[in-house]
């Protein structure tokens, strides 16, 4: 056990911290994803190795060797300083790693640098109304017509579709193949004719997602990652980058502090909420769960660095436990606040974030693999329990 960082890392932490202090004025605050200010800031971050850190220089990155601790130090210092972390989004977090793994040299040249620098914003076209938990049953089709794929169908849960320049998209290119094998991974321009975007309002009242409709959208034949029919494998090489971040215990820790703060300062009938033992007991219960997940996360980090611990199960449970916990935490805050906890939107008494996240995290319990799917995965892959036998088409309808 050694929870300290070695002196060279503490030195690195100093460097990051000094950079952030020195550049505090230059950071864009709340700038849009397409703003020049954010692009400039992103460029500065990449030059210093605080963004695109391990992406090769030839593709527009900083080109450093992977070092998990340095990455973590950067994340911690940016969080501590509440600094702008630069460009995010699914292009950078999901597409770039995928292209690095399975893209052609030409694709890497074409897409990675503009993506990293914010010149090319991406959205993701996976889920469909009929293909949620059962993603492989997707039906959006792409048919080769000369040198072009012709795409028809509908996607859902597409965030940032309105502002995205490009989409990476799963389509069915071989309707006769077994369902996991007929899928391909296409990249195409969102300005292509035949694309319609409809915002999808959710229970929070925001449109965090969209529906996207394709009618005879024509895509050059070469804009495919992997071979035709390899889309499922390509997509799964991406999914592993996505799920880890849902229900992050460090974010939950900040919310717990905010909850404690309310319980120490809000009163009811003159008594502090923290002094009400039934509320306090629930708060402490939540704290115990937060701690356990935080330590689990520390173990995952250590395993990445030291590679000497079997953390398959510990990694698989993070999304299931983290999202349920966060939902429960937000719900507790609402309960202790009583009627005040009902505040939402423009209510002057509280900004309504408790209700917002209570719902948003219910969305995350469902999204990115429902809790039921997560439990299937844990029981089958971590505990080695048998899969449910397959049924014939229409066996239980």
């Amino acid at each position, binding site marked *: 056990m050694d929870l300290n960082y070695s002196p060279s890392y503490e030195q690195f932490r100093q460097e990051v911290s000094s950079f952030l202090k020195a550049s505090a004025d230059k950071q864009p605050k709340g700038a849009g994803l397409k703003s020049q200010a954010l692009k400039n800031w992103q460029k500065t971050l990449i030059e210093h190795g605080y963004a695109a850190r391990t992406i090769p220089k030839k593709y527009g990155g900083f080109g450093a060797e992977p070092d998990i601790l340095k990455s973590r130090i950067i994340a911690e210092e940016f969080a501590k300083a509440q600094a702008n972390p630069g460009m995010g989004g699914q292009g950078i977090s999901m597409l770039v790693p995928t292209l690095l793994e399975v893209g052609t040299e030409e694709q890497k040249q074409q897409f990675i640098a503009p993506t990293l620098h914010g010149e090319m914003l991406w959205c993701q076209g996976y889920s469909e109304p009929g293909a949620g938990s059962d993603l492989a049953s997707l039906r959006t089709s792409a048919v080769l017509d000369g040198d072009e794929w012709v795409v028809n169908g509908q996607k859902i849960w597409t965030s940032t579709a309105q502002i995205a320049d490009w989409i990476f998209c799963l389509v069915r290119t071989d309707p006769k193949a077994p369902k996991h094998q007929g899928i391909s991974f296409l990249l195409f321009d969102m300005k292509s004719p035949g694309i319609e975007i409809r915002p999808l309002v959710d229970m929070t009242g925001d449109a965090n997602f969209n529906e996207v409709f394709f009618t005879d959208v024509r895509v050059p034949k070469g804009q495919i990652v992997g071979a035709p029919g390899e889309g499922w494998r390509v997509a799964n090489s991406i999914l592993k980058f996505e799920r880890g971040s849902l229900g992050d215990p460090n974010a939950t820790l900040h919310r717990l502090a905010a909850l404690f703060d309310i319980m120490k300062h809000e009163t009811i009938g003159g008594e502090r909420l923290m002094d009400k033992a039934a509320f306090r007991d629930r708060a402490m219960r939540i704290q115990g769960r937060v701690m356990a997940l935080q330590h689990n996360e520390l173990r995952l980090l250590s395993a990445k660095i030291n590679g000497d611990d079997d953390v398959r199960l510990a990694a698989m449970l993070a999304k299931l436990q983290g999202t349920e916990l966060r939902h429960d935490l937000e719900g507790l805050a609402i309960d202790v606040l009583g009627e005040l906890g009902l505040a939402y939107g423009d209510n002057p008494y509280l900004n309504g974030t408790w209700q917002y996240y209570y719902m948003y995290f219910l969305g995350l319990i*469902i999204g990115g693999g429902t809790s039921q799917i997560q439990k299937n995965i844990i029981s089958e892959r971590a505990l080695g329990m048998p899969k449910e036998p397959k049924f014939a088409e229409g066996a239980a309808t």
Partner: protein
Amino acid sequence: MKFGLSEEQRMLVDSVNGYLQGAVDIDRLRAASTNRDESSDDVRRALAELGVFALLVPEAHGGVGLGSLDAALIAEQLGGVCAPVPFIGSAVATRVLASSDPELAGDVLAGIADGSRTVGLAIDSYIGGRRDAGIIAAGEVLSGKSLFVFDFDADSYLVATADGATYLLSADAPGVTREPLTTIDGTRRFGELRLENAEATLITSDEAALDAGVRLGRVLLAADALGAAQHMLNEAVAYAKERKQFNRVIGSFQAVKHMCAEMAAELEPCRSMLWYAGHALDALPQEAPVLACQSKSHITEVASFVAKTATEVHGGMGFTDLLGLHYWFKRIGSARQMLGSPEQLRDEAASVQGLI
């Protein structure tokens, strides 16, 4: 011996439910929630014609003088469609007013009965006692602030001070300032009441009268949550029988089946509990105080569980606005906090039983 609904009660439920199912749809909920000025006056008028608001008002004041259980059955139907019409505030006011001087109360009760008047609730101990709120009375002149007053778009308010004295305040009395407050539940109206030497009418100084009103309010909120939860369960079961994934309807997966079974097994006894609590308010004075606390805390806890689980059964669709399931989710959420959250009510339940 009969523990269940009478033929008349079933007919009452059927007639109100029959009307509401046709009149209150998702579009109406969307409109009422996104624009607080959107009025559902047509629904109010129709319900008035069905006798809904006259239900609890004594016959002497133009009402039909039915009981708490009847009112609870109505509240359940209103919750079942998330009806964006005020009902509970006036019902509580009716209960408190009916025990006071008929001279004072007659006009208001008659107005409630014919649907022309609505009373909002500003009770210091349960609603609005947070932060710097609180109403002070000097004689019949009120000053101070009350938060999260509900059934806020009313023409008068039942205002209770911390010592349990209860006043009737006209919404347009001089010295009254009203500020709507946005909450998660757009199907109910909440707001802030600021009073500066506003003249009101003392209804009663007897805390017991107020308590009886609050007990009724709690049982009605429990009923409202039960109705909303039953709707969510029904929707979840129906969706699970329709939606296919992995070549099967999802309702054939044991995990989904068990989620639905757990909801049903938790919720069904709540129906009996509500009946008993409604009956107890009128017939079992010894048991009424604990039943009011326990029925609201238990039923809203179960309803919250159903709200979450039914949304999960709907998958991503449950999270969107497309089906509008979230209106019920939020309706349950507000019923849970109003007139005492589950923890507060359990504490009070222990207290009224003499356990502490």
